[in-house]
Structures are given as C-alpha cells and as structure tokens.
C-alpha cells in the first residue's frame, strides 16, 4: 500500500460561490517524478500549484505530500515563481542565506554564505552573489531563484512558469540547466526531487517532463495525462531531435486546441442565435 508521494484528491477551489477555478481534480505524482502541467491561461494550473504550495486551501478535497496533509507553506516544497521570487532589497547571496537560515541549514552565517555561493556557482553566478536582483537580467534572476530552491534541499520543487518571461535563447539555456541539475540529482542515494512544473509551452513541457498533464478551463480540470516516452538523461536538443518528439508535440497541441475550442464554442453559438 504505497501511497503516491503527492496526492491531490478531489480538490475543488473557487473564489466566491460562482467562480469555480478547479473542479474535482485528482492527481497522483510519484516520488522523483518530473511532471509538466500545461493548459490555456485561466485553466487554474497556477492555482493548483498554489494549493500544493499551501498558499491557498481547497474548498473541497485534500492535498497530501509525503503522506502529510498540506496545511500551509513549508520548506519541504521550494517554490519558483515566474516573476522571480527574490526580495529586491537583498543581494542574491543574502536571499539564499535567508532561505538556508529558515531551512535550518548551515550552522553559522559564514557557513550559510559559503553554501549559498556554492549553489550560485552551480547555476553559473559565482561572481554575482553580491548583486541585487534588480542588477541582473531576467534569466540570471531566475537562475538565482532556482539556486535558492535547490539550496534549501526541498524534496519537492514547485515551478510556476519559471521561464515564461524569458527570451527564447535564454529559455532554452535555462531548460538545459534545469535538466542537468535535476537529472544530476537523480543518481544520488536519496531519490531525486519531485518537480511540479507549470508552463504554457508545449515543447518545454515535453523536453522537461516525465509526464505532461493537460488541463482544461472553466472550470479547471485534468483533461489528459500523457507519459513522455523520451529516454533520460536528456538535453533540450536530444529531446527535440528524438523521433517521438513531433508526434508527442502534435498530440498535445491537438488536445490543447480541443480545450480552447470547447471554451470558445458557447459564445459563438450565442452569437448565432441572435
């Protein structure tokens, strides 16, 4: 009776009595799985992530992580938001040091500063620790946020369109970096990190994920749950060039189109009736 690592059971979320954002979502994620979530804007994929993070509470249903019900935010789940989750008044290093302090890692301030620097070098920012987030490019800020998420060594990573605001080349590089870091961690004695990765980019979802979950909107629900049959370890290039990639992409695009069409349908009918 091994229960799934992350279990979302019949979760419903709404603002007020009318606006149902998520309707009866059930979703199981195994430990060490990398799950991509795609869907049209407004389908509640970010809301689902916020439920997992414990930032909001479901109206009905339950969320458990590692058999523990989620009652609020916790340092066992590191969150990376789209608009860089760093405090602008602290340097990159201070941002990570604060997170380490909260996670109870590192005995002294000096030790925490060293750990922080180590993770900054891991994402190629060894020389930028003393800079403020505002002095960095969007890509560098996002790498800092990822470094912080990795530094606190949370078993679960929740990423909400972390590369959504980046230009294409920067985004491609970040995807490779994330793949490298995550796959690198999988070999270690403790099973790798479980990642819940929200994106609106179909290719990104395939390149990164073991599974792609397609969500539909109004109300938000799970429409498809597709296993990504690409070998690991991957890079962005090996994924895109794999013979299965085009069919996976086309399949997901078709699914997404269906979801969007369905959403557009009612107003068109109403228009025809006039």
């Amino acid at each position, binding site marked *: 009776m091994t229960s799934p690592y992350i279990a979302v059971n019949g979760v419903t979320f709404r603002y007020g009595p009318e606006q149902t954002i998520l309707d009866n979502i059930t979703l199981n994620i195994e430990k060490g799985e990398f799950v991509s979530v795609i869907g049209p804007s407004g389908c509640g994929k970010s809301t689902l992530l916020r439920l997992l*993070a414990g*930032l909001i509470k479901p109206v009905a249903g339950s969320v458990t992580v590692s058999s523990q019900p989620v009652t*609020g*935010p*916790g*340092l066992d*789940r*590191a*969150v990376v*938001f789209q*608009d860089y*989750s*760093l*405090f*602008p*008044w*602290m340097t990159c290093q201070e941002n990570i040091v*604060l*997170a380490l302090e*909260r996670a109870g890692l590192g005995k002294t301030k000096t030790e925490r500063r060293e750990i922080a620097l180590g993770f900054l070098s891991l994402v190629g920012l060894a020389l930028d620790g003393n800079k*403020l987030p*505002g*002095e960095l490019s969007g890509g560098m800020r996002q790498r800092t946020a990822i470094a912080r998420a990795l530094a606190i060594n949370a078993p679960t990573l929740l990423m909400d369109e972390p590369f959504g605001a980046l230009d294409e080349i920067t985004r491609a590089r970040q995807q490779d970096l994330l793949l490298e870091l995550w796959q690198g961690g999988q070999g270690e004695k403790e099973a790798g990190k479980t990642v819940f990765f929200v994106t609106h980019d179909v290719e990104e979802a395939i390149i990164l994920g073991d599974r792609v979950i397609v969500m539909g909107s109004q109300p938000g629900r799970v429409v498809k749950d597709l296993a990504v049959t690409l070998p690991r370890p991957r890079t962005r290039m090996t994924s895109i060039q794999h013979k299965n990639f085009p069919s996976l992409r086309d399949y997901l695009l078709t699914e997404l189109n269906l979801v969007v069409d369905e959403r557009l349908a009612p107003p068109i009918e109403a228009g025809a009736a006039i």
Partner: protein
Amino acid sequence: MSSSDDKSRLFGLFSSLFIILFLFGVYGLITDVLRIPNAVLFPGWGKIIPAFGVSIQQLLNGLASSLGLLVPAVVSSVLVGVTAGIFIGLRPKVEAVLLPFIRAVNPLPSTMLIPYAIAVMPTFWLSSFIIIFIGVLWPVLVNTLHGVAMLEPRWIDNAKCLNLTGRRLVFKVVLPGAMPQIFAGINAGLIRSFLLLTVAEMIGAKAGLGFFVQYYADFAKYDRVIAGMIWLSLVVVVIMTLVDLVKSRVLYWTKKR
C-alpha cells in the same frame, strides 16, 4: 556612478547656485541700490549681513534650542508612527476599525492643539514636543499603513513559502518593502515639523529660531528677522539633505529594479 551622472549633478548644483546669486543680486539691487521698497520692512544686504554678524551667537543658540526640541520629537514620532503602522497594517481587521479615525484626524492642523497643549502640559518644551510629535505622527502612520498595504503580493507569497513569521517577517520583508512609503511619510512629517516648531516657538518659547524671528519682529528689527529666516531655511535645507542621504542609503535597491 557614471561620469554623466556626476556631470548632471554638478550642473544642477551650479544652476541652483546661479539662481540663489541671481535672487541675491535682484534683492540687493531693489533695496541697497534703487531703494524702492520700504526700508524698514525690506532692509538691504547692507543691513542684513551685519545683522547676521551681530546675531550669530544668538542664532547658534537658537539652533541648538530648536534642534533640542525638533530631533527628539521627530525621532520619537517616526519610531511610534512606523511601529504602530506596521502593527496595524499587518492586522486588516484592526486596520478596518481604526482607519476612519486615522483618516479623520490626519488632516486636522496640529496648530489647533497649541492652546490645549500649553494649558495641559507643565512646560513649554513638553507642550511643543507634543504638538510636533502629533503633527509628524499622522503622515508617518498613514504612509506606513499605505506602504504595508502596497507590499507586492509576490513578496508576501515568497515570505510565506520561507515560513517567515513574527519579527523576521517584519524586519526582513515588511519594513524594507514598505520603506519607500515610510520615507514619503517622514518627508511630509518633517515639513510639518518645521512649520509646527516655528509656530510653537513664536507663541511660548524663550529660545529657538522661531522665537528669534518673532522677538525681533516685535521690535521691527527686520534686518534680524530676515537674517533669522535665511538661517532657518539653511537649517531646513541641511536637514532635508541629510534625510535624503539616509533615504538613498536605505532605498538603494529601488534604483536598481
């Protein structure tokens, strides 16, 4: 800092100096040279500058006396205002209850309190202290509340994800995040404080810059009155510049966003 920054700052400084010299010259021309306005109400530099010389000891004493009142009153008011603002701002229910009162009291001129303060408080110093304290408190409090309300939701989410609570939440997130608004409040409060300081001193003091101006106005010694006003403006400029320096130190991050 780039050299173009330095250049534009130098240019600004020279422009300000030029305007000051120009105004100085124009005033000198119409008073000392052309003798157009009433010579008692508008003495020329030929009278004002010696008045400075004669009064310099009094002006310095007055400055010491005024600062001895202004600094404790403003500092304690800012501390109380910011603390209360953060305490109330973080408790939406308390804020909802108090906000109508805060809004109602904020625009009332604290000069109205002068007769009460003088009647109730045992000494002049205490009554002036209370008037300045209250006058500064409201803009600081209101702006701090505003600053807390305007904290970006992503900072709050971020703080929640890091389990930041209590003192840490206040000092690592709420206070720095609300700092731009808090400084707006401090600036507004400071301007009020100069006004209240001089008004209070004119009414009941035996020393201070406002007292100096009022005292010589009573004897129609307008050369000294104008010397005192120029001195007072200089002091205000220096204090505001110092506050600006502190502000740019504390808010270094807002320029780099």
